């Protein structure tokens, strides 16, 4: 009797088979076994008045539906001298997308739409980039040459990004090793995507052209936590110079990951460093899984004799598909089944948490054939769309072997079917070779999807519109005086004060180490307490409240000073934080008043305790002294804030009882 194939069971079995462990359980041994390797490209906007190559203001942003004009472009790749098109360029060209740019007069000029050549490079941007390069211990170039880097996804109207190297061969110091830096470049930022549906992609041009620095590391990191640490370090370093923009979208990381036998895959635009460990962990195992699929396929047959077989089917013959399409209101002008010989057990093979190899195909159908998801099901779908009989029927229709083969059923506009078939075939042929070079997009859950073919290094050529810019040694020396204290020294300083490292991110990213130091040395507060207030309690207030006007962190120094000079108990600081932040101009006395916290003398407190003791006996809950103590504590806790500490209160209560 035929064994029913269980996709979910297969998924779990293949997951365990390749040795996947969740990140929290993984050890360096796991990473060494699969040969985890990772490098970073950290992007950070430089804080300047104007954009890089024109005089438009930098840092002004518009909403997506307010614009003065829209223009349409189509991108064409340019052939290289090898008579070949760069892989990415070719892929983008095949998608035949119409790119629409929304332009607002205040933030874009004719340079942005490639109707005017570039102005000379923004000197403020260049100077700040040099300081940032010096901070990363890079060797500064003698002459800055501006290069064009081709991008055909439409994110830049010219089809290329102007970029220039400022420095090469530097290093950063992590907690237990050095990570080498390849280079730091200054480039123009790209458009922000508004939407990408079918064959139409819409962008806005407010961010386009803003100066951006990119710090590239060697792939020296050997586990996910190191990658996050490096990303944070570079972020602190850049921020500590005071020369970069902060806020949402001002910085983003591209992370490169590979495993032994895998390929360099780039995870682009990771918005939060906290996502990095999960993303890199899963990507490394995804590649490991693809290598397993490669081995299985090659053991079953050669790629040279492999061929997919396709056929259009009538959706009315398959109730499940029909229902699925109708329920989700999908476009299904044509429905195609594609037989994948020898792919049994591979479409449901684990690739990422909650994702299997079939997802890799579905992602490409969306990106390359422009068919919106959900765009397919298959003979081993983890979502179980087809029933057993339908699966067998389809195998019969396409002359496939249910024991050894698999199939994909896809649907969409008729005009996209040819590209769809090519895309599926292409991805399956790649599976015989291992891990395709890709750029992938990241999600909060730590998984990634295909975004585009990895661009070749040979898609760069000199910008014929810009002359090289000399950088003299005297100029560099004059900028060296603007360097901040090295971040690793600051981290050690915090450590030497006994401040828990969980507070480091806040203190360093807001550049508050000087403030913390002054509160400790000038006012004599205990370091751990200061850090817990500023990077703990205050940070949380900041996250949940809006300030009436711009908040100056110096006010925190004044607060600590006020409490000390008025002999108040430290416990008053925490409740005051909200008022201190929300009303930056309100004096501290009023804030305390508004908290309705009375100042008690010691005698007053003892009297209060005595009263409460009597009350407790009257109510007669119990005779237990501990219960009485706790009950009185509860009643008095808030009242004595600022007068004495909780510890002192408990001591007094116990004494009375």
């Amino acid at each position, binding site marked *: 009797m035929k064994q029913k194939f269980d996709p979910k069971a297969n998924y779990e079995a293949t997951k365990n088979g390749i040795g996947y462990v969740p990140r929290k359980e993984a050890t360096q041994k796991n990473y060494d076994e699969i040969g985890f390797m990772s490098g970073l490209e950290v992007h950070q906007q430089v804080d300047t008045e104007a954009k890089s190559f024109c005089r438009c203001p930098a840092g002004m942003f518009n909403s997506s539906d307010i614009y003065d004009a829209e223009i349409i472009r189509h991108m064409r790749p340019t052939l290289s001298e090898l008579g070949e098109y760069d892989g990415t360029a070719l892929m983008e060209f095949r998608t035949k997308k119409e790119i629409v740019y929304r332009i607002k007069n205040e933030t874009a000029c004719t340079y942005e739409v490639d109707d005017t050549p570039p102005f000379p490079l923004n000197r403020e941007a260049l100077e700040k980039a040099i300081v940032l390069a010096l901070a990363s211990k890079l060797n500064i170039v003698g002459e800055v040459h501006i290069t064009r880097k081709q991008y055909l996804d439409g994110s830049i109207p010219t089809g290329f990004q102007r970029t220039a190297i400022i420095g090469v061969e530097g290093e950063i110091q992590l907690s237990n090793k050095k990570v080498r830096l390849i280079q730091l470049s200054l480039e123009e930022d790209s458009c922000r995507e508004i939407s990408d549906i079918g064959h139409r992609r819409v962008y806005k041009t407010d961010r386009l052209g803003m100066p951006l620095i990119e710090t590239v590391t060697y792939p020296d990191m050997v586990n996910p936590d190191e990658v996050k640490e490096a990303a944070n370090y570079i972020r602190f370093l850049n921020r500590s110079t005071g020369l970069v923009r902060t806020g949402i979208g001002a910085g983003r990381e591209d992370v490169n990951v590979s495993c032994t036998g895998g390929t360099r895959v780039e995870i682009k635009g990771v918005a939060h460093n906290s996502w990095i460990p999960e993303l890199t962990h899963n990507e490394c195992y995804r590649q490991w899984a693809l290598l397993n699929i490669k081995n299985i396929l090659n053991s079953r047959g050669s790629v040279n004799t492999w061929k997919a077989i396709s056929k259009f089917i009538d959706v009315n013959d398959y109730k499940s598909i029909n229902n699925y399409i109708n329920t989700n209101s999908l476009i299904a002008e044509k429905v195609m089944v594609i037989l994948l010989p020898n792919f049994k057990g591979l479409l449901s093979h684990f690739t990422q948490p909650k994702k299997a190899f079939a997802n890799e195909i579905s992602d490409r159908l969306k990106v390359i054939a422009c068919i919106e998801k959900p765009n397919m099901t298959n003979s081993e779908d983890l979502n179980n769309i087809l029933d057993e009989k339908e699966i067998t029927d389809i195998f019969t229709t396409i002359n496939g072997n249910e024991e050894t083969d698999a199939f994909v059923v896809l649907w969409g506009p008729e005009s996209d079917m040819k590209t769809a078939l090519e895309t599926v075939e292409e991805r399956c042929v790649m599976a015989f070779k291992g891990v395709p070079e890709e750029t992938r997009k990241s999600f909060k859950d730590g998984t990634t999807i295909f975004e585009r073919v990895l661009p070749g290094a*040979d898609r760069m050529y000199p910008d014929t519109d810009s002359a090289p810019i000399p950088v003299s040694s005297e100029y560099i020396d004059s900028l060296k005086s603007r360097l901040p204290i090295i971040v690793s020294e600051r981290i050690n300083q915090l450590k030497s004060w006994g401040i828990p490292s969980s507070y480091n991110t806040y203190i360093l990213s807001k550049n508050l180490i000087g403030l913390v130091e002054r509160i400790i040395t000038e006012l004599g507060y205990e370091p751990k307490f200061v850090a817990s207030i500023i990077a703990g309690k205050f940070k949380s207030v900041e996250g949940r409240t809006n300030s009436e006007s711009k908040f100056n962190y110096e006010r925190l120094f004044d607060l600590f000073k006020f409490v000390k000079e008025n002999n108040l108990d430290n416990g008053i600081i925490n409740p005051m934080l909200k008022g201190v932040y929300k009303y930056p101009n309100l004096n501290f006395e009023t804030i305390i008043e508004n908290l309705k916290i009375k100042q008690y003398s010691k005698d007053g407190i003892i009297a209060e305790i005595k009263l409460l003791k009597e009350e407790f006996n009257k109510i007669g809950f119990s005779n237990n002294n501990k219960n009485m103590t706790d009950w009185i504590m509860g009643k008095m806790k808030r009242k004595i804030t600022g007068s004495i500490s909780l510890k002192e209160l408990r001591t007094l209560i116990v004494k009375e009882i």
Partner: protein
Amino acid sequence: MSEDFFQGYKGIALELLKKFNVRVWGQAEIETTRGKFKGTILPRSENDDDTHIVLKIITGYNIGIDVDTVTNMIETGYKKANYKIPEKEFPYTEGLPKVKLIGTGGTIASRLDYRTGAVIPAFSPGELYGAVPELADICNLNTEKLFAVFSENMGPEQYKTLAIAIGKEIENGIDGIIIGHGTDTLHHTAAALTFMVQNSPIPIVLVGSQRSSDRPSSDAALNLMHAAYTAGHSDIAETMVCMFGPTSDEYGLLIGLLLEQ
């Protein structure tokens, strides 16, 4: 004939290269007061100064090294650049119109040498086919470079040469003519030809490009395709200009000048 090992370098930079025996296209390791740099030595542009050396580093970017800062250089390898473009045959299809493309000096389509950054004009039918393969679906194309003059320097001499060439092609039975032309005086030449070539039995289309043909956003390819279609398939038997409509890629424009006799 001796090879030029120091293409484009002069003065102090040339002396330095000679001193350390490092050639253009050599892989070099350079020690300077600012640290070490490694890459391929590229030719120097004649418009740039003689105090810097251009290096292409491994990530594909170019940088300049200040000659004053160099303390040592060694050549670790050598691979000369080869500008040859592989020839592809323009496929001829039975039944498609015969169109002749006359070149006057501009760059209609280009190819890039990524290694050096050189922009190489594509002009022969094979080269154009490589750059704009869609042309093969529109017509059977032949090309001829009549002369190579910047369009701002064009005058009566060139108009005459063009008119005579057009006449010859018409006698040979061509279905349509495209003339590649710089945008500076495209309209002058077109006007002159309207007077000089009267009662033309075929379309004569002048075409140029606003954005240079090496960039992905160039209008060159689309303009060329529109021009080829007009020359081969339309019944507009007169001289006209084909360019882009708006700055947006929405449509191309055909502009003609009708003469009343």
